[in-house]
């Protein structure tokens, strides 16, 4: 059984066995029972100055994505479940959970004594109120809303037990109630969440000036401890310093203005590692992927021969070298090779420009005008689009590339006002978050992408959602992905990775393999600054 199967997809017996082991693990190290005296580590502390490429667009974590890779404000929150350093779903505020036989309801048992930053205890009522707020379509963002859409009603079984009743069988729920994005806010502070958010995370809010500074201080009553029983986190304070420009962020690191940064530019990585390995630690977590979307709603790509030709025309190696400077992996599916959800039996189209040309001739489509859109403000997206444009032109298409700002692109996407689109996805802790959301015919997001419909694909993905066993789910996803590889609503290009760098004075820090800077037993929870 692989690591991932210990968490998101378990047989009942395995689940109970693993949960018992986890609870034993709790006693040995990581989580102190309520009765244990909390204590600070006598020597570890300091102020982390965290330079990020991004900044939150708002403080209300139910309205605005608090991206746990690049928004320091995400350190305010934890969720019912958590992730460990390998990206596995592990207990968080909920110490255990189990589904009914049909997977139509899940019972979560909450850890006692977990507090919000305002001192209120996290109980079943608080969980219910949070879920209801996220489900409010006028509040929950598209991301939040879609993640827990299978939750129909929430019952408070007792003070520390909550039951989610689902609209359909759903094996993925534990992954979807993790702090990203289903984080918990203090219900009394819902109305002031945009000014002063109150979460349950290891740090609490002090101030936020957008694109300038985020200040967080240690939450002394955070529930997690280290193996010696010392309270986490160690750090006294985190100061988030968003710096959009890659060179500015890197300079700030090298001049000591920040001691941790994310998203080093791909072009800088190798040279930096060679020159400064003695002064800095680097990591390369996986973030997601980039892919081509073919529009099925209108335009020339409604013809499968043209889609196939376009796919054969793409040389992923060229994108790997020119856009990503050798960072990350060429991908023909959502999950990279090292990931438990990587599909071994997937068959993707290879680079074959001659075949592309002959397909176009056969379809009498040489010189077909193609309108491609991409994000103007995302360098990897824009550059990938430019290379794809060149490749398609070389085999006989006539491609016009329109880089667009976010909103005009969203509008064009919604209206289907494109033939090809370069899109990206962030990591999904459960594959249903990708396979269903991006490609199922009933998904609004999928409809706004390719608009593709395939009944067999839909059935396979729906069936996978009803299974706990990861091996069985992978089989279904493999079959589903092979349909995608033939019909080509999407064509995957490359993995997105992030290079995260910390000065050597930052001790005890390792990001999660999927990029989160806050995770169980690690990240900023165990980081400290060496004096």
């Amino acid at each position, binding site marked *: 059984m692989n690591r991932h199967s210990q968490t998101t997809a378990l047989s009942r017996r395995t689940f109970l066995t693993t949960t018992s082991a986890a609870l034993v693990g709790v006693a040995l190290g990581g989580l102190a029972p309520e009765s244990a005296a909390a204590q600070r580590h006598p020597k570890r502390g300091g102020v982390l100055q965290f330079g990020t490429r991004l900044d939150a667009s708002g403080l209300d974590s139910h*309205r605005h994505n608090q991206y746990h890779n690049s928004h320091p404000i995400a350190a305010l929150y934890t969720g019912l479940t958590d992730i460990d350093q390998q990206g596995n779903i592990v207990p968080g505020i909920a110490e255990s959970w189990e589904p009914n036989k049909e997977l139509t309801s899940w019972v979560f048992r909450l850890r006692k004594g977990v507090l919000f930053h305002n001192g209120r205890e996290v109980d079943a009522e608080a969980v219910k109120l949070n879920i209801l707020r996220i489900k409010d*379509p006028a509040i929950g963002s598209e991301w939040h809303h879609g993640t827990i859409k299978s939750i129909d009603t929430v019952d408070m079984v007792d003070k520390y037990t909550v039951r989610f009743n689902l609209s359909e069988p759903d094996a993925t729920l534990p992954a979807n109630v993790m702090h990203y994005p289903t984080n918990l806010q203090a219900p009394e502070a819902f109305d002031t969440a*945009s000014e002063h958010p109150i979460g349950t995370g290891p740090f609490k809010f002090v101030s936020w000036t957008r694109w300038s500074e985020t200040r967080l201080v240690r939450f002394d009553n955070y529930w997690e401890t280290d193996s010696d029983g010392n309270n986490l986190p160690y750090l006294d304070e985190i100061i988030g310093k968003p710096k959009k420009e890659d060179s*500015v962020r890197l*300079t700030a690191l090298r*001049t000591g203005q920040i001691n941790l940064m994310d998203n080093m530019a791909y072009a800088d990585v190798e040279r930096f590692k060679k020159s400064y390995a003695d002064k800095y630690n680097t990591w390369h977590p996986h973030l997601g992927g980039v892919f081509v979307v073919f529009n099925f709603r209108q335009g020339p790509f409604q013809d499968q021969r043209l889609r196939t030709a376009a796919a054969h025309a793409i040389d992923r190696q060229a994108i790997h070298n020119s856009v990503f400077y050798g960072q990350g992996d060429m991908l023909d599916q959502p999950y990279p090779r090292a990931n438990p959800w990587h599909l071994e039996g997937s068959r993707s189209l290879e680079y074959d420009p001659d075949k592309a040309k002959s397909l176009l001739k056969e379809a009498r489509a040489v010189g077909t005008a193609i309108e491609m859109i991409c994000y103007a403000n995302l360098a990897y997206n824009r550059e990938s689009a430019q290379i794809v444009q060149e490749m398609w032109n070389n085999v006989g298409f006539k491609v016009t590339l329109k880089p667009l*700002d976010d*909103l005009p692109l969203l*509008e064009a996407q919604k209206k289907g006002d494109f033939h090809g689109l370069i899109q990206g996805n962030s990591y999904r802790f459960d594959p249903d978050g990708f396979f269903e959301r991006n490609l199922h015919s009933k998904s609004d997001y999928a409809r706004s992408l390719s608009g593709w419909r395939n009944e067999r694909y839909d059935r396979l993905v729906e069936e996978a959602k009803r299974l706990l066993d990861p091996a069985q789910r992978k089989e279904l996803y493999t079959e589903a992905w092979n349909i995608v590889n033939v019909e080509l609503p999407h064509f995957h290009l490359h993995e997105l990775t992030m290079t995260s760098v910390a000065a050597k004075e930052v001790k005890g820090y390792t990001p999660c393999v999927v990029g989160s800077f806050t995770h169980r037993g690690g990240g900023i929870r165990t980081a400290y600054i060496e004096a």
Partner: protein
Amino acid sequence: MLRYTIYRVLQLIPVWLLLSMVVFAMIHALPGDAIDALVPADAASNPATRAALEKELGLDKPLYVQYAKWLERIVLHGDFGRSITTRRTISVEIFRRLPATVYLATTAVCVSLLIAIPLGTIAAVKRRTIVDYAATATALLGVSVPEFWLAILCILLFALHLGWLPASEYYSPFDNLRLSLLHMVLPAGSLGVRLAAITTRLTRSSMLDEIRKEYVDTARSLGLPERRVIYTYTLRNALIPTVTVAGLQFARLLGGTVVVETIFSWPGVGLTLYEAIMGRDYPMIQAAILILATTFVMMSLLVDLTYCWLNPRIRLG
């Protein structure tokens, strides 16, 4: 002069009203919908949800009603409303950032004048000498160099390699004057150098015009020291166009320093306005433009009043 000042302040009212109408109309003509930017696609296309959101944000009324309500709130309550994106009070957001923008703009213009006036004057006095050619070439180079390129170059040289100055960030002069000035050098310098290039050429040509006038010959023939002729009499008259341009440059800097603010992590209004435009945050855009425009008009008034000080013969109004 008092009457003129009052007259100019009163003129602000119709200017401001007209500006508010233009800003409001232009912003609502932008492609892209604020509701689409805020909520899921399925919610945005759900009529009930859309209606509820439009009501909450006041977008359900006809445009002229929205305009009237918005204007009423500002005039009677000083309330610019809440940002659609962050849901925070706009007044707090903008007025918290405005001092940083004004500080940067003022310092950049001062830097430019400190460079441009002496350089332009010397170039005019030493016309067609090596000094003049050097000053003109420097000015040409300054005009040609993009601000963001110069900014990044300055960071690499002064912050990274020499370690003399900090690379970015802002400190209020009221919190820590020393740190504030240290952090101001690079952003104000990169902006100021480019402005100085334009102002140098203007000062030079303005000085050349003044130097040729009869009163200068008269002053010299009266035996006044050359330094006094140039700096006390000629320069004062030559500065009027320079002051005008400095005022316009200041106004441009108020809203036009997005790139420099991004590079130096400067918490100014420029970057806020840019983000608001990208997110179709209508109330924030309207408020930011109005506030900047008002500051600009006040600055124009200040420039006009400066003319009187430079040349008491000028009668305003």
